[in-house]
């Protein structure tokens, strides 16, 4: 006897049994809640990354000063579905604040909107989300400054002349694409008219792919004088590629580096200098901003200010953006002084 109808009914009944509860009640603007009584869900792009481990250290610093319950959770590899799951568990826990460094600015927006409708406040840090889906964005430095700082190291090392290529992260990464746009705009300045960008390729923040992209770039352009790598993984891979092909003496590599695990690149002289900011301060500032936001001290309007502990008072700029400071250019002389900012033990 085959009775498939009954079988399907059993399975669907099991699913429907979970729907016992009533529908959600309508929601207004969430009431202020002091951070001490709050759970904060802070979602990094990926957990398998010393950079975000240092961000977490900064958040824990701030948590010690302000109190509150911090859930720093994210997908192991940067994927949209994993981030959406974490947003939703924050929403279900009733987190006062959900903070996110978005892998994809538009794809996480619906989940964030749903969490806001349920009474969570949403902030982005490190990498922004679509306008309207967050109240605040804690930015490490402006895209303009970050693009210029990286470009200047390269230009100086190349003597403002010659061909260079870019090895970036994902072709869809909006933050790095923004810096690259700034760099390309710099080329129009008379000072840099001797420099020429030959190709932009993408290593997807994967060591092997970035290495292959750098090798392809070096092989295709024998006159190449420089590689711009606006992401730490691509920078390390490009250094290795230039060394392996025996062209390290004429090709300069720079871009974005992480002193937490890449101080050696500066000390051995393989990279003249690279740019970053303090991830620990970024985490610290994000936590302070979240605390001020949930307590109702700030609402995300331009001109509002809040106290950010050891970083002093910070002002919200246009578009709900809080800019932490200026990028730091690391060299072999100063890198050791900053190692505190990259500690990964929370």
């Amino acid at each position, binding site marked *: *006897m*085959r*009775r*498939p*109808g009954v*079988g*399907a009914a*059993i*399975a*669907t009944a*099991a*699913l*429907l049994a*979970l*729907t*016992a*509860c*009533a*529908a*959600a009640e309508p929601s207004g603007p969430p009431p202020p809640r002091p951070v001490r009584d709050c759970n904060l869900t802070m979602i990094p792009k990926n*957990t398998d990354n010393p950079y975000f481990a240092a961000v977490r250290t900064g958040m824990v610093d701030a948590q010690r000063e302000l109190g509150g319950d911090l*859930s720093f*959770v994210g*997908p*192991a*590899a940067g*994927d*949209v*579905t*994993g981030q*959406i*799951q*974490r947003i*939703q*568990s924050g*929403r*279900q*826990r009733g987190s006062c604040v959900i903070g996110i460094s978005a892998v*994809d600015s*538009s*794809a*996480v*927006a*619906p989940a964030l909107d*749903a969490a806001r409708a349920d009474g969570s406040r949403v902030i982005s840090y490190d990498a922004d989300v*679509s306008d309207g889906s967050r109240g605040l964005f804690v930015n490490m430095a402006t895209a303009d400054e970050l693009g210029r700082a990286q470009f200047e190291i390269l230009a100086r090392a190349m003597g403002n002349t010659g061909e260079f290529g870019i090895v970036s992260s*994902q*072709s*869809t990464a909006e933050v790095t*694409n923004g810096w690259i746009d700034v760099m390309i705009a710099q080329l129009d300045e008379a000072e840099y008219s001797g420099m020429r960008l030959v190709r932009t390729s993408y290593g997807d923040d994967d060591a092997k792919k970035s290495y292959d992209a750098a090798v392809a770039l070096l092989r295709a352009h024998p006159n190449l004088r420089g590689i711009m790598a606006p992401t730490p993984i691509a920078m390390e891979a490009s250094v290795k590629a230039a060394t392996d092909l025996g062209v390290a003496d004429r090709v300069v590599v720079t871009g974005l580096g992480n002193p937490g695990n890449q101080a050696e690149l500066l000390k051995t002289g393989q990279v003249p200098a690279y740019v970053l900011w303090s991830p620990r301060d970024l985490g610290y500032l994000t936590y302070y901003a979240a605390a001020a936001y949930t307590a109702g001290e700030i609402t995300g309007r331009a001109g509002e200010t809040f106290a950010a502990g050891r970083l002093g008072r910070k002002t919200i700029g246009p578009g709900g953006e809080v800019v932490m400071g200026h990028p730091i250019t690391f060299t072999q002389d100063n890198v050791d002084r900053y190692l505190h900012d990259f500690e990964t033990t929370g």
Partner: protein
Amino acid sequence: MTAQTTGRQSPTPVPAAVRRRLPSWFGTWEITLLALVVLAVALASATSPYFATGQNFSISATGALGLSLMVVPMAWLMVAGEIDLSVASTFALSATVFGLAVSGGLGTWPAIGLGVLTGAVAGLVNGLLVVDVGLPSLIVTIGTLGLYRGLSYVLLENRGISDLPPGLTTFAQENLPGTLVPYGFVAFVVVAVAAAVLLHRGALGRAVFAIGSNAQVARFSGLRVGAIKRGLFVFSGVVAAIAGIAYAGYISTVRASNGTGLELIVVGIVLIGGISMYGGKGSFVGVLLALLLVTVLTSWMTLGDAETAVQYMVTGLLMVGAVVVPALSRRLHMSRERRRSAGSVR
């Protein structure tokens, strides 16, 4: 008591009677899965206050829509002894075509039509290569996995399309008004019940089982094996297209990277559901229970802030278990029989 050579006529009549009463679509494996689901639900409810809520059902069911839909044709294909590893790439390609059509000014329904047509063609190509050229489906669909995904990247490059019709995003993100039952869940239940009834009751279902058991015999007994297999691949492509478009609505974004790696989870669920890799065996109820089990476990682990790596491991263990446990029990059963028949000879 002389003829004790077959398992059905075991010396104790009670288990034999029980076994005979179990229908083919609800056997020991389905009972095991049901027990696991009950156990997982009980443990999750006991350990997380957010698990057994209507909201969690709504969130989990909404998020699982794309995956759940693709499980349906995969179950049919694997019963017929074939496999389609290109589903997640078809998922992305169809959504890409749909997204381009929408941004090109086509209406919602024509754009969906175009997306679904893309899926049908992608499925037909698989079907023609497998049936008419005579290549193994594993190899063909590994090839088209890369081909369809690559095509999506060629069409979209690094762009994302976020301006999607509100009707689609509502369908893919929201619940029936006044309830916690997502629209997508209702759609899935309709598809799943139809597929279950057809597979276990209809002539087509019987034909698919016959083909999976022995395609030669099926052909000699007058079944149109080629046509049915081709049809199954088209079915797989069409459903992957619908799933891909629905997922694009869920994250409000079409990107070439949508659903990367999803095919393995789909195949994993079908295997956990007890459908044999070699075709001809299994039940749709088992597959639905496996889908339920994986969804429940994922939700539970996410609510508990488990690392993504742990989530992969648990799903992996279940898959290995689904293959090993039945194989072991069969071996145990056979050795017991051998001993028994040896005893009766003596």
